[in-house]
């Protein structure tokens, strides 16, 4: 995974390569999750499922990976007697997402026609 490297500073004089892209975020389902979490403060599993179209199992698995990388924080609470799992991007996750977005933009800008 390039997730740790992607967050580090890149020498601006070196041309951007695909290795500079954070592969943990680059996976389509996780990218979709990161995009949705980037625009809100936090959201529960049901909301993320509805917005992304992912299944419960997929959502859980991808969030788990993002949580392991320190990009997402999972908080389990109870609303009445019902469990509620809220997910939110951490500061590291927001920074990684910004970096990913900038590098993707740069990658295509630098690509010849």
């Amino acid at each position, binding site marked *: 995974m390039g997730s740790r490297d992607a967050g580090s500073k890149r020498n601006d004089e070196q041309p951007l390569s695909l290795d500079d892209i954070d592969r943990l975020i680059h996976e389509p389902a996780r990218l*979709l999750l990161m995009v*949705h979490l*980037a625009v*809100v403060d*936090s*959201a529960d599993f*049901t909301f993320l499922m*509805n917005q992304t179209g992912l299944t419960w199992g997929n959502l859980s698995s991808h969030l788990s990976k993002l949580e392991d990388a320190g990009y997402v924080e999972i908080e389990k609470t109870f609303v009445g007697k019902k*469990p509620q799992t809220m997910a939110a991007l951490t500061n590291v996750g927001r920074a990684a997402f910004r970096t990913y977005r900038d590098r993707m933009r740069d990658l295509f800008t630098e690509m010849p026609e």
Partner: protein
Amino acid sequence: MQTHYDLKEIERRAFRATFQDGLWDIYLGIVFTAFGIGPILRSGLGLSEDSTMIVHIGLLIIAMLILLAGKKLITRPRLGHVKFGQQRQRKLSKVRIVLALSVISGLIVFAALAGDSLEMTGLSIVFAANILLVLGAMAHFLDYDRLFVYAVLWAASFPVGLLLEKHTGLHDAPSVFVATGGLAIVVGSVLLVRFLRTYTPAPTEEPTNGIA
């Protein structure tokens, strides 16, 4: 798979999802209908001022109960829970300020309306402008486009009612309120049915991969 991510649009779409249930339409529709029901009951059934006031307040309470219970028992289990960012929170704060100003100005207009019937035309314009400004601001800050339509309809209700009264001799303003309020209730009900068909209650959260 989506190929283009417009973050602002995604945030807006996520926020707009909270209006897909039609509950706000039903709530606003009942509130507006309540304004017309009182005078109709008074003139049609000969109910006293106190009785019509009880009906009016009762309808407002029912509207609030439908909104709160609906959000808790219908929307949240299906759509999930989300906390929006600071920018959206600031917009919501503006809506609260607009609503507070609306209540204050509404009370002033109501008191003025109750006083002098000779000034009805002028006051109807003030009333219409108030509705247009308040609901228009809410529609803008909440990204709730249907509210623009309701704002125009309801703002027009009072002057249209007065015009009808002038030309037909009948006191039709309350009927116009009920008709336009009823329209919002119908729209809300259709949206609610569609929402119930689209979103099923989410599965109860179970431990999966140790996080949910």
